[in-house]
């Protein structure tokens, strides 16, 4: 289990996301919901596509290609055409720095 430092994310506001393209195989997307950071791999479970190019609202990320939707907190898929969850990762903030675990949750 390796922690990867993402830097200072205190400027990442609720309802916004940021992609770290060089973390993991696909890159990792970090977003904030109600003050809490969440992280998931930048890869749709339906077809390989970058979720970071989709839209993030509330607790849902929508894939821009076919409209698959996922709960960013748990990775669970919310609608077709996805039939399986996306990979979410533990992310924490400490001393003004954010860290994401590079192993899958």
């Amino acid at each position, binding site marked *: 289990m390796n922690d990867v430092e993402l830097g200072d994310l205190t400027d990442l506001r609720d*309802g916004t996301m940021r992609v770290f393209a060089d973390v993991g195989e696909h890159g990792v997307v970090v977003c904030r919901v109600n003050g809490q950071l969440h992280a998931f791999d930048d890869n749709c479970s*339906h077809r390989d596509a970058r979720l970071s*190019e*989709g*839209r993030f*609202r*509330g*607790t*849902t990320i*929508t894939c*821009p*290609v*076919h*409209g698959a*939707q996922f709960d960013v907190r748990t990775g669970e898929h919310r*609608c*077709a*055409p996805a039939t399986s969850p996306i990979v979410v990762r533990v992310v924490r903030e400490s001393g003004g720095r954010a860290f994401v675990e590079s192993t899958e949750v």
Partner: protein
Amino acid sequence: MADGGVNHEKGSARAPGPTLHEQLLADPTRPPWPLLVEAPAYLGDDDISYSVYTSEEHFRAEFDHMWSKTWQWACHVEHIPETGDYYVYDVGPHSALIVRGEDGAINAFYNACMHRGTQLRPPGSCGFANQLKCPFHGWTWSLDGELVDLPDRWDFPHVGDDTHRLPRLPVAVFSGFVWINFDPDAEPLSSYVGVLADHFTEFGFEDRYIETHVRKKLPCNWKAAIEAFLEAYHVRETHASGQLGDEVTTQYDVFPPNVSRFIHTIALDSPQRPAPRTEEEIFANMLRGVPVESRPKLPDGMRARDAWAKIVQRDMSSRYGHDFTHLSESITLDSIEYFLFPNAFFFPGLSLPMVYRFRPDADDIDVSWFDLLILRPRPAHGEVPPPPEVIELDVDDSYTVASGLGPLGRVYDQDTSNMKAQTRGFRSSRKKGQTLGNYQEVRARHLQQRVREHLRAGGFTADPT
């Protein structure tokens, strides 16, 4: 024309005592002009055949001839604020894909691929797309419906950009909501809404946001579900003691062809109450939800209704940063319910600010879906909160789990229990139709007549009445 005690005259259209109109005129603050309009209607007194709730042929004819021809609100404009945002609205077999286009305009398309029919986006979904790409073979349209990619185009010499653009369906924005009609030749929404175009200029629905959104599965036909909310005649028995005096003074209006309305007052004694309550008693009743130690006293010489309106106005003013203290007592407190056929309800009141939508289940004639929204004034400062996630409730789930409904949750639960019993009774009754009050239940008759008119226009005549 009496016949064995039966009288087919239209009746008085009034309960004993002062009318609601007279009550509004007695308020210290004059309500907005639409609330002073009276439009009683007598639409006949024939029984409504239970077959309209139980016939599968009727159910299918409604999808074919009525749901396909009428304006329905699909989503709120805030569900699709930016280019590429989409929302899928479904009713029975019909499905509309509503998309915010490149130029910010709202487009609505039939939600089906022009290749082999696959729905482009799943039912009920709300999301974002750069382009509308079919998940089956990848045919792709722009957000404005232009065919922009067709894999292996060499195999489709018979496909043209014009023949295979996404067909549009009529779409319009009204009262902060996006409305669609599955009929390409539909009359404009602006004429379909009738008096609402004028009445709603007084209410500012477009300046409200969705605070709470509940979607409940109901154990009854969609028309029975709607009818449960079209009259306040049931209030005395369903929501109160059943004793005379616990009814609410209500005005019922019909504005043909598509609109009906009721208004019922809050914090006034019913004129039918045998022993009227004192203003202090009425005020105490309004303060039930307030902790005893912080309950104010009724100022000398002030009516409970007027004092309660002031309290509500101050509370809402501090909560939403607007000054509501100039509003009338009626718009502050009363249950003011507009219905737009076939399935939309709008409540302009400050403390009862709901929007409803009812839809039939696609397959089960005895199931319907109830969207219950609480709208609030956009905050004077700061960002408008985005639409909340939908709280999904199954048939037996209580509305009280949705905290945003407050004490209304219990009231809606009381309505639900009637629906199951009535649905069973449609089939167990010896009498084969329901008998409606000429005045208090005229809006249910209006709904039924509009459905019947659409079905007959479509050539469906199996209705025995």
